[in-house]
């Protein structure tokens, strides 16, 4: 299958994934149930949901690490079961571990090699990405001695090594300190600015709210809500009025539904719920 110019970055159609659990009775686990979603080019898509809801499973099927039970996934129009669909993707697995016997620069060199970069490119990318994820001070240390957050950062650098057009991040900020977490958020925003498509899962809803264009809420394998962030968190049957320089007396009047006043109406719209409240509602 060829890269069609207008194909979306990610297309998941009716994906179902059933795991067989090794046990005496033939038990199965339905991890993802008839899930469909599309991530447009240059879009940042957030997948949120409680533990065990099927976020990581969806991503692994997308990357060809697991086989779909039914349904199909494609990346830029190329089927996920084909190796060449992975040419333009960078993946950060959850709780990533890398080869402990390698140093940070050797790690990037290795992943660059298997992506087919030339020696000069690998050297440049390695230097650039280590700077980007703030690991310049630990370039020549073996990963065996890296902390959890440092591993997460090298994982991010590794995902970007061949300048992918799509980045798949499974909980990119897990185990990263608050300032590192903010750096990662900035990095995601910068990638978005470069037109790179991103699909990420996270439990930090505030961050998802900050960086994602669209969000899908997944619960027990079902995609229960999906949409543009503004739409999802607006409350349909209420209106919000923001007043400037309103005196307490005026507020009284407004509260009493006084109309035709000299008060300037700055904005009238839907008040926002937080993504967190929506999340809790949808996954009860």
């Amino acid at each position, binding site marked *: 299958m060829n890269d069609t110019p207008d194909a979306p970055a990610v297309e998941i159609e009716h994906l179902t994934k059933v795991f067989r659990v090794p046990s005496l009775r033939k038990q199965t686990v339905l991890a993802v149930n008839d899930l469909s979603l599309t991530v447009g080019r240059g879009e940042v898509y957030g997948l949120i949901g409680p533990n065990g809801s099927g976020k990581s499973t969806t991503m692994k099927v997308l990357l060809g*690490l697991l086989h779909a039970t039914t349904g199909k996934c494609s990346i830029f129009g190329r089927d996920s079961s084909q190796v060449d669909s992975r*040419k333009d993707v960078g993946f950060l697995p959850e709780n990533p571990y890398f080869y402990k016997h390698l140093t940070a620069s050797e790690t990037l060199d290795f992943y660059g090699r298997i992506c087919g970069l030339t020696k000069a490119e690998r050297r440049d*990318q390695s230097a*650039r990405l280590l700077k980007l994820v703030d690991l310049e001070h630990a370039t020549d240390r073996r990963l065996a001695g890296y902390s959890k957050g440092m591993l997460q950062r090298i994982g991010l650098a590794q995902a970007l090594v061949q300048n992918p057009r799509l980045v798949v991040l499974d909980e990119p900020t897990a185990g990263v300190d608050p300032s590192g977490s903010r750096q990662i958020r900035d990095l995601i925003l910068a990638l978005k600015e470069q037109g790179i498509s991103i699909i990420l899962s996270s439990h930090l809803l505030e961050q998802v709210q900050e960086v994602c264009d669209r969000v899908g809420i997944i619960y027990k394998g079902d995609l229960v809500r999906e949409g543009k962030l503004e739409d999802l968190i607006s409350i349909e049957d209420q209106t919000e009025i923001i007043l400037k320089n309103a005196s307490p007396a005026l507020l009284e009047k407004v509260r009493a539904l006084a109309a035709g006043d000299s008060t300037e109406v700055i904005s009238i719209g839907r008040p926002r719920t937080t993504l967190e409240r929506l999340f809790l509602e949808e996954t009860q």
Partner: protein
Amino acid sequence: MNDDQETQAAAPAENRTGYSGPALATESKAHSMFSPSRIWALTMHTFTQMVRMRVFYFLLFFSAAIILVAFMFLRFTPEQELKLLKDVSLGAMSLFAGIFAIAGTALLIPKDLEDRTLYTILCKPVPRFEYLLGKLLGMLVLIFVSMLFMDALFCTVVGVREKILVKETADAYDQELAKFPERGQNESWKEQREEALAAITNYGLRWDLQAAVWAIFLKASVMTAVTLLVSTFATTTLFTIISSIAVFIIGHGQHLGRSYFLSGAPEGGFERPLAGVIAIIFPDFHLYDIVDAVVSGEAVATTLLLQMSGMTCLYLLIYTAAASFVFSNKEL
């Protein structure tokens, strides 16, 4: 190289600043389904991994063992002494190559799965059979390099010991001659002297030793491929190791079993097809049994070496193809 840099420089600068980085030569290239450079990267990575696991420390045991044997046993005849030295050394080489092949290989895939490092490789455009091939070749390079080291040490020790023994024997004859000068005229005594020295050289450093070392390497290669195959479907490392050892033992005994089993088996019985199946599933290590002959100073035919090498290639091909089939359908 130069071409790559030129395209890089010529690439449009838009969208190529800050975070997203420079244009890379790979971006325009079509993806190749088979890339020797990718396989080589995986090979060297596996090799480095094993080296940094300090496996080469095992070789110190080998060195200590053969040096000890070489200079300890002085009560035998020179031939016996050299034979013992070669027996012990080749046996130790066989043992180390076997341990590397089985234990080392059995660890590779389960470790990658457990640490989830496998994900980070297979989510790149790397076909699964290339990953397996990289692991296999990495182990073969490791075994080859360690055998090269053992072989060099072994040959040095045998060579030195041989020289010493030849000199001692010649000195003994010379002393005898000094005592009984009339023996210099005795043809049969001179012949006896020559024969004694020839016997030592025959048991000494000869090219056929390299054939034995090569046979050991080939056998270890087959075991590596077998272990890799088992590890693609095994659920535990212990299972992989035990099954591979079982294959190793069956592989050694299968020619005996086959001749016993098939002698007097009726045409059209189940015995023949069963023996055929066993012969395909389990490698026949009888093929590689040249070590004993070499130790006793016999020559090895070139055709035998070619046959051995050819069969090994065939085994590697079959087992790796099977491993690749199992692995490409595996859920990670």
